């Protein structure tokens, strides 16, 4: 029972991180109809930028903030300068992001070297929390709560604000949205930047546990893709459900059958695809 609860909490922690990263990926897909292969790179860049800032200033908050801003700016530049001119050519955009993924991967290796590292824990969240024989690291709980807050914020922005309404219109039918005077190109840029920033934030949140290492970008990308495929591309709710499913299965899979962890991860994707090719909450 204790084992089960601890593993469930661990699964929730994975799900929380996955949600932070996959929500950006799914929103970018929703507006631009393209797969951002560089999304894992933004996650990686976030950790590295935060690491640099934190070692210089000792401030976690400053590190997280800088990482988000810098990576969002990089995302905006990539979208504005390179992807925008290929609007409605998803394949060209995808290949462009793949080029950037390779460039970022090698650039990070060049700048920060190949040594793995972890970010420091925030003060006060180092220890663990004991409730009725269950010992659980406080930081993991903190990440779960933060992801929940981000989820609620995203939901509010998407459903209750004017920008969110424009966004939903663009996801629904970009051409019609543009016809009613919505600046879809600008919106795409903002969503792309926000997605990049969220991925960076996810990287920083996972930083004390998962850390940074060369190759982390392509380690994460398939997980985020599976989340988005299961949940349905373009759907925030799908990203949430997908993250929960993948987080739980990945965690229990690794604990129970470590050799087959990749299979336990991709099996649910295959089942969902066989039944509903657009994912649980996606639309064709």
């Amino acid at each position, binding site marked *: 029972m204790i084992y089960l609860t601890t593993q469930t909490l661990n699964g929730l922690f994975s799900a929380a991180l996955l949600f932070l990263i996959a929500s950006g990926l799914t929103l970018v897909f929703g507006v631009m109809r393209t797969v951002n292969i560089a999304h894992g790179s933004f996650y990686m860049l976030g950790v590295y930028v935060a690491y640099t800032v934190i070692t210089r200033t000792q401030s976690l908050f400053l590190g997280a903030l800088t990482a988000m801003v810098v990576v969002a700016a990089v995302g905006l530049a990539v979208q504005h300068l390179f992807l925008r001119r290929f609007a409605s050519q998803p394949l060209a955009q995808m290949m462009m992001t793949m080029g950037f993924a390779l460039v970022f991967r090698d*650039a990070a290796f060049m700048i920060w070297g190949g040594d793995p590292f972890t970010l420091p824990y925030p003060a006060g969240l180092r220890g663990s929390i004991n409730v009725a024989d269950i010992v659980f690291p406080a930081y993991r709980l903190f990440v779960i709560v933060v992801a929940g807050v981000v989820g609620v914020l995203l939901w509010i922005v998407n459903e209750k604000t004017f920008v969110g309404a424009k966004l939903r219109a663009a996801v629904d039918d970009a051409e019609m949205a543009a016809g009613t005077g919505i600046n879809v190109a600008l919106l795409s840029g903002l969503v792309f930047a926000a997605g990049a920033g969220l991925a960076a934030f996810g990287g920083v949140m996972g930083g004390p546990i998962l850390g940074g290492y060369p190759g982390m970008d392509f380690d994460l990308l*398939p997980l985020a893709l599976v989340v988005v495929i299961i949940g349905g591309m373009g759907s925030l709710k799908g990203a949430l459900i997908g993250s929960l499913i993948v987080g739980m299965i990945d965690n229990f899979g690794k604990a129970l059958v470590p050799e087959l962890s*990749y299979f336990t991860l991709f099996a649910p994707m295959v089942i969902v695809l066989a039944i509903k090719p657009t994912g649980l909450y996606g639309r064709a």
Partner: protein
Amino acid sequence: MGEPRRLILILVVALLIFLPPLLTSYWVGLLTQMMIFAILAMSLDILLGYTGLPSLGHAGFFGVAAYTVAVMSTAYHASFWACVVGGIVVGTLLGVAFGLLVSHVRGVYFLMITLALGMVLWGLSYRWIPVTGGDNGISGIPRLEAHAGLPMTGPIPFYYVTLLVFIACSVLLAVFVSSPFGFTLRGIRENESRMKSLGFNTWLHCYLSYVIAAAFASVAGVVWAYYNGFVSPTYLDLTASSELFLMVTLGGPGTLAGPVLGAGAIVLLKNVISAYTQRWLLILGTIYIVTILGAPQGLWNLRQRHTSRVH
């Protein structure tokens, strides 16, 4: 096929046959690599260029076939033909199985699913350590010349074996793409719903196209296992698949000459640049970006457009 193109083709084949004995073994090896990757790139082009299905896990078939040869020849000491047939059959069967999962999806969905499936294969090669050796890979694959019982050894005989396979694959693929089946694939690429209403079973065409592409990729994988004598997970990861994607895009999707050109260019650049700098990925990424910006239809089609304007 126009006159100038036929002339180029004859010239290239003549060069490939008569030039190698005059070259150093480094260049013979490089040409061998180019031809292996040319087969692989052409097989991806069946999907990407002719059928319009962007497969981002194609290196998986190549890798699985290579691993099959490696496992059979080292752990089970299988004979040469058993290894060759085994590699091709296992790779193709994988295509048969995966094809069932992907043939009903299109566009960006196809891309994501093939990417994920490719990652499964990579994960398997990386984690299934008792069979694949994990990160260390499998070394000690016998030399092809010795394994097949050829009277000669060295890079030149291997080169001619590869050339033979390359020409056979090229001819088969050329016949395939100019067959009614190949034209149906192009029809699906251009307008699937119209092909459907004309009575074509587009699912079956996409499925067979996927399986055939997997089969040719497996052939390339078998030759590669013997060429390299060593297999490791890096040959089927996402970087490998995207490099392959770039070969086709750079060369010119929807043609057979394009992928060959692209594979030759990338293999050449990779070897030459790697001799001078460690920054191959940076350069590869830049080539990607420049290709999409400058020649989104590929080098070969650029040339074609040019000549058609002249005539």
